[in-house]
């Protein structure tokens, strides 16, 4: 074992321990803020493992997207609505916890048996290393063109959907035909609507 291999094994051990510890913390800690911060730790450790796997672009993208965007958004959501609420401890709550633990342990045992017993085909392709960005780009614009372009539609729609969900709802400006439409109604009809365009002009 030379120096590089030793460094790799030690870093893998550290990263794996970090990731597992943080992940267990995310699930088990009572304080949701701690869970959210630890989730960031999980993401960072995964990025480290990507680095060890010679996928530096994926690692950087992981940090940018998961830590920089997803986790920060989660934290935002938690901190803006952080209502401290004491939950009544469930009677016989431990049964649920124990059952969950048993199920999780079972799935873990199943999956790890599967992983160990399968003779995985190991790719012989040389890792792209520094040129990985170029290779990824070529794939995006050749054999993965369709999902790449479809993802742009997906993102556009997610953008529109987020705006729809987040904006204040307006009533149509002309209330004139309201009486005429009174014949029709829906259970979903929201009653306390703000007329559109009014409060903008006020302030």
């Amino acid at each position, binding site marked *: 074992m*030379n*120096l590089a291999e030793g460094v790799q094994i030690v870093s893998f051990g550290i990263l794996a321990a970090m990731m597992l510890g943080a992940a267990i913390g995310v699930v088990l800690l009572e304080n949701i*803020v701690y869970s959210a*911060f630890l989730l*960031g730790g999980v993401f*960072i450790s995964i990025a480290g493992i990507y680095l060890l796997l010679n996928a*530096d*672009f994926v690692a*950087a*993208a992981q*940090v*940018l997207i998961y*830590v*920089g*965007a997803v*986790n*920060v958004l989660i*934290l*935002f959501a938690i*901190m*803006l609505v952080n209502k401290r609420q004491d939950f009544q401890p469930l009677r016989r709550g431990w049964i649920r916890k124990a059952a969950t633990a048993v199920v999780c342990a079972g799935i873990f045992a199943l999956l790890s048996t599967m992983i160990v017993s399968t003779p995985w085909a190991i790719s012989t392709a040389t890792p792209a*290393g*520094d*040129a*990985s*960005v170029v290779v990824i780009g070529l794939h995006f614009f050749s054999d993965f063109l369709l999902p790449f372009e479809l993802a742009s539609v997906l993102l556009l729609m997610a953008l529109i959907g987020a705006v729809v969900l987040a904006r204040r709802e307006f009533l149509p400006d002309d209330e004139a035909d309201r009486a005429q439409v009174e014949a029709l109604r829906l259970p979903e009809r929201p009653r306390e609507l703000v007329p559109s365009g009014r409060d903008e002009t006020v302030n």
Partner: protein
Amino acid sequence: MNPGIDLQGSFIESLKSFGLPAGAAKLLWMPFPMLVILVVAVLSVFALVWLERKISAAAQQRIGPEFIGPLGILAPLADGLKLAFKEDVVPAKSDPLLFTLGPAIVVIPVFLSYLIVPFGQNMVITDVGMGIFLWIALSSVTPIGLLMSGYSSNNKYSLLGGLRAAAQSISYELPLALSVLAVVLMSNSLSTVDIVNQQTGYGILGWNIWRQPVGFLIFWIAALAECERIPFDLPEAEEELVAGYQTEYSGMKFALFYIASYVNLTLSALLFAVLYLGGWEFFVPIGTIAGFFNISETAPWLQVVAAVLGISMTLLKAYFLVFIAILMRWTVPRVRIDQLLDLGWKFLLPVSLVNLLITAGLKIAFPVAFGS
């Protein structure tokens, strides 16, 4: 092209001549550039604090620090000493663990980003393929630290400051990344060294600032916002939020925030110089000067001169930008938080997208001038 001075190569060679194996020599070399950069980055904080004081004084027609050392040059040192010996207060109802961790998470990514700052052809800690993307990715970690310290202080001003800081840095990351992407598009590489090399050959005329005037302005605005400098220092706006997420901090923990903000400013200025001002390039190409005096480009002494010139050019450009940033701090009023977010999302983001589109179009139309 001038291959530049290869310090690593010569260091390893000289150690090998003492009979060390190549691996061990490399191992000895590895911490060296990191230490140098770390020390230089911390020293730059002192320089910046001093500059800030002197320039602010000049802007307000005062003298500024004068008696602590020549021209008050030791004033920042006194500041540092004060902070180092100050009592480290952890508020009673705070969350001590997160309270301590917050400043660390803010500082670490900033220092890590120095990995990719080049001072010469071979004078960079590591020329990874990710290059500039690494910086963008790392700088997106900082908001977590800010949120952490804002939350753990158990103080509404701190929490608001932390939330503002995170919102601000998310909003301005997008135009920043998009304007960097336009530069990357021209140089066909994310590596900072390649980006500088793509600007070489024509001296000052080859710098990206002429080809990316819009991107350059967007980058500067976004970088100021990322560093939370006035006019974008909303997270610590003292009239509204006492001091934002730093309110409860004192002693070395406060000093960490302080260091991080100045180191980040230097970093942004350095990368600005690399991306738009030709990095280590002199105003006239070194090769042209050497050709004019009939000197071989590979002469050892010329390489040393070129390396020194490269470092000083990079620093010169960066400090010019720092000077502008400080001048702005003392001359420009602060924007409001809604204006700040409007500017980021409704103006800078579309403009930077259009800039990217135009750059791509120009690259196809004029491959000679915009990178092929």
